[in-house]
């Protein structure tokens, strides 16, 4: 009666130890988590913390570069936890889209860390900034590289708790106010994501993304997949600050210190965008097509909210919050268009926006520090004192408005062309209009804060700090470089779009022996 008590599990276990390439997939998240724990132990030694954090983030950039080389050479790479093969075990899968985002995130974090190191030299007191920065990077890297949708939720929560800590670090009343609104609304958004994951599990019985892609065609007739995709759209749209769930962003992003704001502007909304791309383009493409009118409407509303909001602000940090929103709208426009032009353009714009928004927040933070105010009415005379810095800022302003020859121009050109190709002239028009509004808003900042002579009563403009300008130059070099020579990134982004849109290589990497049981 008794069956054999020896169970053959070899079919469910990976054969042999993982290769070095596979270890690379988990190394970004794992190394950040580990270093974060070490930094907590070094709470009382800010100097050492600083040094280790900079070294750790440089290592992260290196690992992501190696991973990018690996993915470019062999296609997506999968690492499974505890040797349990998917769909049983949790898989980390790095494809080109994920690696590109992870690399951009690592670069941004490295620059922010350098800038923060300079900013904090004067205070000399230890606090949780570096451990939380590394924890945030663990969450971001994990979210970009995981191949399991529940695991994606867990990484979202890791980066969320780290960002709560970072945004609340400080004594100001405005900061507590901003942190509270940020925390409540982002927690609700992540909970919505968890609901969507629950329903997804009820429909598919699996949480592995590759497995979902394979099972979706059979279930498309009976399961409410459009509703599910709409729920994902709401949850990730809230994370990405899309209209009408964008109000937490301009309420919070101007309150923390410049380095933290720069980090948030560069990374957090883009994690939402990445998750949106992953779910709608790879997992549920027909449902994305059905939701296209909705996404396009949201995109137009988001772009116009961003543009008009930027025009209405007197505080230049709050203006930047709306610029971030306008950028999110542009990415959503690409998502609503679909196809190589739309998705490729959206991905390009997201990468550009990660670098640019960080640079803008750092630059405006420095401008406010040397000018003694963030109010447009009070600022003045920055050009007269620091012509080079003003030029640098002008480059960033042009890039954010989407003017050539900077990196913002190419993805926007791609998206406008893709929109016109499918006859969506109103979408193309909205993109150009939002670019125009941003040009006016930034033009006004340059006119008022930089060109206008300083008022007699105003405090003198302070000297620049090289600790702030050095990291900023690094990012500006990327913005100008990819503006002048976009071909390399353009080609890589198009390859990434192909693997996202047609994930055969991704599936092959997760299930090397073909379909799962």
């Amino acid at each position: 009666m008794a069956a054999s008590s020896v169970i053959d599990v070899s079919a469910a276990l990976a054969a042999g130890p993982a290769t070095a390439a596979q270890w690379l997939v988990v190394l970004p998240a794992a190394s950040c988590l580990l270093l974060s724990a070490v930094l907590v132990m070094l709470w009382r030694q800010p100097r050492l913390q600083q040094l280790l954090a900079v070294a750790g983030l440089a290592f992260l950039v290196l690992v992501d570069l190696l991973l990018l080389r690996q993915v470019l050479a062999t296609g997506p790479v999968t690492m499974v936890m505890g040797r349990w093969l998917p769909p049983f075990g949790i898989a980390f899968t790095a494809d080109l889209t994920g690696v590109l985002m992870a690399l951009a995130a690592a670069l941004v974090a490295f620059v922010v860390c350098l800038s923060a190191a300079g900013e904090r030299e004067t205070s000399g007191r230890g606090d949780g900034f570096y451990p939380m920065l590394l924890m945030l990077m663990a969450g971001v890297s994990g979210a970009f590289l995981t191949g399991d949708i529940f695991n994606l939720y867990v990484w979202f929560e890791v980066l969320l708790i780290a960002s709560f800590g970072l945004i609340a670090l400080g004594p100001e009343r405005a900061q507590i106010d901003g942190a509270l609104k940020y925390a409540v609304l982002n927690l609700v958004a992540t909970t919505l994501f968890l609901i969507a994951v629950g329903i997804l599990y009820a429909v598919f019985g699996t949480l592995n993304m590759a497995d979902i892609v394979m099972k979706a065609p059979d279930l498309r007739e009976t399961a409410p997949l459009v509703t599910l995709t709409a729920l994902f759209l709401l949850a990730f749209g809230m994370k990405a600050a899309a209209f009408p769930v964008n109000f937490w962003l301009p309420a919070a992003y101007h309150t923390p210190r410049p380095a933290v704001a720069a980090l948030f502007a560069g990374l957090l909304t883009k994690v939402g965008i990445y998750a949106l791309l992953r779910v709608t383009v790879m997992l549920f493409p027909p449902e994305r097509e059905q939701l296209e009118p909705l996404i396009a409407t949201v995109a137009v509303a988001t772009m116009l909210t961003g543009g008009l909001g930027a025009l209405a602000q007197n505080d230049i940090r709050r203006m930047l919050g709306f610029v971030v929103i306008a950028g999110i709208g542009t990415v959503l426009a690409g998502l609503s268009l679909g196809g190589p032009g739309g998705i490729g353009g959206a991905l390009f714009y997201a990468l550009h926006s990660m670098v640019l928004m960080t640079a803008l927040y750092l630059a405006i933070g420095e401008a406010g520090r040397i000018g003694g105010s963030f109010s447009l009415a009070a600022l003045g005379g920055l050009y007269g004192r620091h012509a080079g810095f003003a030029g640098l800022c002008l480059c960033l302003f042009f890039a954010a408005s989407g003017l050539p020859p900077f990196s913002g121009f190419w993805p926007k050109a791609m998206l406008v062309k893709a929109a016109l190709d499918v006859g969506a002239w109103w979408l193309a028009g909205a993109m150009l209009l939002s670019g125009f509004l941003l040009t006016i808003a930034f033009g006004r900042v340059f006119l008022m804060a930089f060109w206008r002579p300083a008022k007699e009563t105003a405090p003198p403009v302070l000297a620049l700090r090289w600790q702030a300008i050095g990291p900023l130059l690094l990012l500006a070099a990327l913005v100008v470089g990819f503006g002048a020579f976009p071909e390399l990134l353009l080609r890589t982004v198009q390859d990434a779009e192909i693997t996202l849109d047609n994930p055969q290589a991704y599936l092959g990497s997760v299930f090397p022996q073909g379909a799962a049981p």
Partner: protein
Amino acid sequence: MEAWFSLLAGLFFAAAVYLILSKHLIRTLIGIVLLGNAVNLTLLVAGRLTREVPPIIADGLDRLPGNAANPLPQALILTAIVISFSLFAFLLVLAYRAYRVLGTDDTDRMRFAEPVDEPAPPKGY
């Protein structure tokens, strides 16, 4: 069974949304706790409910009986409980500090990050 549990989860969601929409911070927080529990219920129902057999492989068998409960949702819920518990703990501290520092728990009066009397940007050079 699933239908009843879905209804219960729906009730939880309704109560949670009602509380979150309140302008008093403490109610919003209670709403968030309820929302977390509603989601946990949803996850439990997502794995389908059976009451017959616990998911333990008996001696002499090599697989779960067909009518065993699904163990995966319980693992998911456990993860979600731990995460939402820690986030909620942080949120409570933050809300308490906000109450102490800002002197109010009425979100309408929390206008420190976005002041009501923020001036318009200058119109002329």
